[in-house]
């Protein structure tokens, strides 16, 4: 009796999670296709909703909030996600900086180097 109730309850949990994920995906899709937002804001909104969907799927499909105490899976995930973010944001930052600083003529580069040298360390 209670096992059947559990089965039904958990089935509903999975379906609710999937519907929430589908709605989030569709909202992002509509926002992108309608082109109501500026590029930067679209990126912010899309990434924000992706993070929400990440949490939804982590909880409803991977049961991450449901672990017993040492919570190795949640801990290793948080650490791995932090490292992944460092890799991605770091790469973009460094390469954008490089792009900006290399995007000048040799003459401009010379002037820039001289100016930087005068500053010293």
């Amino acid at each position, binding site marked *: 009796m209670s*096992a059947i109730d*559990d*089965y039904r309850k*958990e*089935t509903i949990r*999975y*379906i609710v*999670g*999937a519907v929430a*994920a*589908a709605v989030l*995906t*569709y909202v*992002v*899709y509509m926002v*992108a*296709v309608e*082109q109501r937002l500026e*590029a*930067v804001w*679209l*990126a912010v909104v*899309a*990434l924000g*909703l*992706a993070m929400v*969907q*990440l949490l939804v*799927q*982590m909880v*409803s*499909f*991977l*049961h991450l909030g*449901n*672990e*017993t105490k040492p919570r*190795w*899976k949640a801990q*290793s*995930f948080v*650490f*791995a*996600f932090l*490292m*992944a*973010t460092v*890799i*991605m944001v*770091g*790469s*973009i930052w460094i*390469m954008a900086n490089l792009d900006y600083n290399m995007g000048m003529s040799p003459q401009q580069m010379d002037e820039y180097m001289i100016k930087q040298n005068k500053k010293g360390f």
Partner: protein
Amino acid sequence: MIRTKEQESAPMLGFWLYLMTDLMLFATVFATFMVLRHATAGGPSAPELFSMKTVLTETMILLASSLFCGLAWLALRHKKRTDFLMYSIATLLAGAVFLAIEIQEFAQLVHEGFGPSTSAFLSSFFTLVGMHGFHIAIGLLWGIALLIMFAKKGFGSSLARKFALFAVFWHFLDIVWIFIFTIVYVIGVHA
């Protein structure tokens, strides 16, 4: 919520740690893509190449596959044979359809002359999306192997443990796809 030993066993933790290293691999390839996404070398850029409708379809199919996989895992924990069989076959079918659409998309790009060697942007695109697709292909083979095992031995004690690992792998791939959808397609095409 029923807690099972399969969900927190040592093999599960080990497999989970593998997935976390896989996450790092995806992170580096994502980083590469984000850095190179404007480096089209005079070739076509994302808005000219990708159809958002196809991508939305792909995304929904993969999400459905992930849902079926979760339901199959649940049916397995509750020892429901027919439900398990139905849901796991649905999982693999949806996964196969997803992969077929992706392969078709790749083939079309290459056919039109926009293969991975066209530009740095396309190299990184094929690497990232192709790597995800390769994981899906491996997952499909794994799922078929598990179904054969089920046909031969039914619900043995080891099927529950092995299917739990497969389910976690499959859900993980859907989570990676959220970010491919967002970064490669939504941001790549519109921002």
